């Protein structure tokens, strides 16, 4: 089919969805299934710390696959450009668009309006985070907690002068399976916002930091177990978790922070059966090859 012919171009133009032609769309009737009412939380804590929060309402058109983020961006583009919203990837990969949607922390890009099964969508900033503006919150404390658990591989064997002789950490698929689930965390903050302990205890690290502490604890390439456990084994650490399970309930990536916390607790109590294996570095120095060849010759 040649779409560059004049008659074909006209045909394609006629097939463009109605949502693009703004002037023809009805946005007043709540019974009209092609539009929903969007209630957006508005506050400007940066400009005015005493600002009184309120809700603004927008009627936005929706199609079958319209997400909450699409609806918010539609309202921002065509009705009120001052709406503060954080987003990036639009595919549940970056975690930027976390917010409370109809009372539950969710990713706006990952929540379809059709799944919510309501004509009124209420968008609020994530709980347990300080407001910046509208739907944008301050993640500084969240990242501080994450940093406090030292979320990186620490292996003293790697700190050697002649690092060129060593190539890689050997890790079996079984070792990988021990922590792989927890490595899917995108730091969206939904678990932190859903946690009831975080709401009352400011010093509690939160489910994200604790699950990442387990992720690196369970990693066979990591050898610095004690320092990381000292950070979380405090009066406001891992033991203040009440096992509500809200964190695992809201996680968009299936990380299950509650599981990580309970596994880490069992390690701290000394009742865990799984042994933590220390990584074995592959020695690729020239001497090691000669020794292997000599052993093979002797065996022959």
């Amino acid at each position, binding site marked *: 089919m040649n779409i560059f012919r004049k008659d074909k171009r006209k045909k394609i133009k006629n097939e463009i969805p109605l949502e693009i032609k703004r002037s023809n769309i009805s946005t007043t009737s709540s019974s009209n299934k092609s539009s929903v009412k969007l209630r957006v939380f508005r506050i400007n804590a940066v400009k005015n710390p005493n600002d009184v929060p309120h809700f603004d309402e927008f009627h936005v058109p929706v199609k079958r696959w319209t997400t909450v983020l699409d609806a918010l961006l539609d309202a921002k583009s065509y009705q009120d450009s001052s709406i503060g919203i954080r987003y990036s990837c639009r595919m549940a990969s970056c975690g930027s668009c976390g917010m409370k949607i109809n009372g539950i922390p969710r990713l706006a890009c990952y929540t379809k309006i059709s799944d919510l099964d309501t004509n009124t969508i209420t968008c609020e900033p994530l709980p347990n985070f300080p*407001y910046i503006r509208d739907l944008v919150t*301050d993640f500084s*404390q969240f990242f*501080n907690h994450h940093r406090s658990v030292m979320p990186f591989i620490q292996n003293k064997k790697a700190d050697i002068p002649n690092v060129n002789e060593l190539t890689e950490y050997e890790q079996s698929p079984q070792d990988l399976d021990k922590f792989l689930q927890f490595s899917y965390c995108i730091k969206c903050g939904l678990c932190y916002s859903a946690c009831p302990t975080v709401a009352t*205890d400011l010093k509690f690290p939160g489910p994200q930091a604790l699950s990442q502490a387990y992720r690196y604890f369970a990693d066979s390439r990591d050898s610095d177990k004690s320092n990381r456990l000292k950070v979380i*084994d405090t*009066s*406001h*650490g891992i033991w203040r978790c009440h096992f509500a399970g809200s964190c695992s309930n809201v996680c968009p990536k299936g990380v299950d922070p509650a599981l990580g916390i309970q596994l880490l607790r069992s390690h701290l*109590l000394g009742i865990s059966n799984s042994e933590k294996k220390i990584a074995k570095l592959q020695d690729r120095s020239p001497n090691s090859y000669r020794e292997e060849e000599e052993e093979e010759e002797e065996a022959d």
Partner: protein
Amino acid sequence: MTSDSIKNNNINKNNSKNTTKWFSNITLLRESQIMKIHYITGVGALFVVAIHIMMRLIMPFNMSLEFENVILNYKNVFYALLLESILILIAIHGFNGLRVILLEIRQTQIWERAVNILVIVAMIGIIAYGTRTIIIANGFSLG
């Protein structure tokens, strides 16, 4: 909750620099050790209280509360030890639980220290007073 309130809490700073030397950085037990004791005392208390309840069911309720019968319980060494163990296990478990609840309400350094000290003092006080009662009752002579 604003950003300023979070910053003012100084959660990630080393608070020992801003505190008095007295009782600063004293850690008798790690939190995991405290919680291990908490779990063991909880299970233990459940067990001994079950025995205590079963012992109370061996006679009618109104007879069980008569003064002479109560004193006779204390005069039985094994029963006195059972009551002492109930006292110790429940005091430790209960006051540690209270400490956890109070620590979650507020997180200032003065509050945390006050809670820790008061809980330990109350625990020791209750155990001491209860032990005194058991010892006096054990030595109490009827008539």
